[in-house]
C-alpha cells in the first residue's frame, strides 16, 4: 500500500521496546494500514510530548512521517486509555494476551478492518467489565476466521460428512474436526474434544463475531477449559510459536480460583 510522506490513522498500541537513550520503538495495529512499527523519539523522557498516550492497549489517533528505515511518530492523541481495564490485574493480563495475538497474526502494512474492530470492541468490553466466560475464546475464533484460519466444527473437515455425536478429534493440520473414518492417523497435531466443548465452540461460531453478546447460559468449567486448551494449541500451531503472555494469564486466572 502506498502512503504519503506523512499520514494519520487510528491505532491500538500493542507494545513497545526501548531504543537509544530516550526513544521507543512502538508497534501499533491500525485501522488503515494493519500492523506498523515506528519510532517515538523522546518517549522515555518525563516531559515527553507524547505523555502516556503510547502505552500498550491505548486506542490513539496518531500521525506519522516516513523515515529511512522506520517511520516516526509525530503526534499522538489518546482516544481511549481504557483506565478501568488497567486498574484490574486480570483484565490487564487478558488485554496483553489480545495484543500479543494481534501482534502475532496481524500483518505489516496489510489492513484488516475486521481484526481492528474486533480488538477495539473487545478492549471496550474488558474496560466495561462485563466479561463473559467465552469472551477470550470468541476473540480467538474471530481472529482465526478474519486471518483465514477458521477451524471447521460443523462437519468433517476432510470428507465434509456430518459428524456423529462425539467425542471428537480436532486436527490442527487439517484445520477442523475429523469423523471416525478420516481420523485414522495418529498425529501430534490432533487433540480430543468432548461433546460439551464442541457445543461451546459451535455456539461461539454461530454468533458470527458478535463478541458483545453474553451467552445467557453457564457453560461447564471443564468444557470451557478444554475449549481454551484446544484453541491455544491451534493458535500455537498456526503461529508456529508459543504465545508468551499465556503463562502470566494462566497464573492470574489460577489465582482467581
Amino acid at each position, binding site marked *: 500500500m502506498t502512503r504519503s510522506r506523512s499520514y494519520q490513522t487510528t491505532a491500538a498500541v500493542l507494545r513497545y521496546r526501548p531504543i537509544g537513550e530516550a526513544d521507543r520503538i512502538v508497534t501499533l495495529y491500525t485501522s488503515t494500514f494493519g500492523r506498523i512499527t515506528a519510532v517515538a523519539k523522546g518517549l522515555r523522557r518525563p*516531559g515527553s510530548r507524547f*505523555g*502516556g498516550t503510547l*502505552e500498550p492497549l491505548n486506542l490513539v489517533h496518531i500521525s506519522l512521517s516516513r523515515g529511512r528505515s522506520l517511520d516516526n511518530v509525530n503526534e499522538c492523541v489518546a482516544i481511549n486509555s481504557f483506565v478501568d481495564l488497567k486498574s484490574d490485574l486480570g483484565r490487564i493480563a487478558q488485554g*496483553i494476551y489480545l495484543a*500479543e495475538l494481534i501482534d502475532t497474526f496481524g500483518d505489516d502494512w496489510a489492513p484488516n478492518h475486521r481484526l481492528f474492530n474486533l480488538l477495539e470492541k473487545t478492549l471496550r468490553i474488558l474496560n466495561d467489565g462485563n466479561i463473559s466466560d467465552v469472551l477470550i475464546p470468541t476473540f480467538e475464533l474471530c481472529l482465526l476466521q478474519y486471518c483465514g484460519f477458521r477451524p471447521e466444527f460443523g462437519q468433517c473437515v476432510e470428507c465434509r460428512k456430518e459428524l456423529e455425536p462425539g467425542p471428537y478429534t480436532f486436527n490442527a493440520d487439517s484445520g477442523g474436526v475429523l469423523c471416525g473414518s478420516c481420523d485414522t492417523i495418529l498425529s501430534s497435531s490432533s487433540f480430543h474434544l468432548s461433546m460439551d466443548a464442541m457445543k461451546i465452540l459451535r455456539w461461539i461460531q454461530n454468533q458470527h463475531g458478535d463478541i458483545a453478546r453474553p451467552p445467557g447460559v453457564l457453560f461447564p468449567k471443564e468444557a470451557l477449559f478444554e475449549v481454551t486448551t484446544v484453541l491455544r494449541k491451534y493458535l500455537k500451531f498456526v503461529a508456529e510459536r508459543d504465545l*508468551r*503472555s499465556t503463562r*502470566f494469564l494462566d497464573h492470574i486466572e489460577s*489465582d482467581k480460583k
Partner: protein
Amino acid sequence: MVNESYGGTPQVQRLVDELGRLPGIGPKSAQRLTYYLIRMPAEQAENLSSAIVSVKRNITFCSRCFHITEMDPCGICIDNNRATGTLCVVEQPLDVVALEKTSSFDGIYHVLHGSISPMNGIGPEDLKIKALLERLKLEEIEEVILATNPNLEGEATAMYIHRLIEGLGVRITRPARGLPVGGDIEYADEATLGRALEGRQQF
C-alpha cells in the same frame, strides 16, 4: 567479515563486533567508537579496559536488596542511620541511584530486576518477588513503597505485589502520579491528568 577498505584488521573488527553487542550501539556507532579508541592515548584506553574488568570482577548484587555493590550486604543495607522500617521496591539498580540522588528517601530498597512483561515472557517468577516476600517475613518492615515505573508493566507489577502482600499488615504505598515538572498540561494524557487531579493538594 573484515572490510579492508575501512582500514579494518582482525583486531579492529573484533573490537567493532564487541562494541556492537552493547545495547543501543549499532554497527556505525561501534565503528565510530572503535576509531575513537584507536586515537585515544594508550593510558586512557588502559584505564577504560581495567575499569571494565574491575567492575566485572568486583561488582556483585547485594544478597539482601539486589542492588549493585562492591560489598555484600551493600552500603545502604548496613547503614544504621537508614529508616529500615520503610522499604522501597524498584525495578532496576538505576532506580535506586535516581532515588538516592533526590536525598528525599532514607529507607531501604529492594530491586526486582525487571517488571512483569507477559509479551516478553517475563513473569513474576523471573523477578526478585519471592525474595521480597522472605524479607517481609524476616525484617520489621512497616511500609512498602511500590516504586515501579508508571507504565503498564510497572503498574501490573505493583498490582501483583500488592495482591501478595496486602494481608501481611504492612502499609502499602505508591509514589504520586501526575504532571512532570517542565511538562505541559496540553500534552498530558487522560490517565496522567486524572491521577494528577485526584492527588491535588492544598496550595
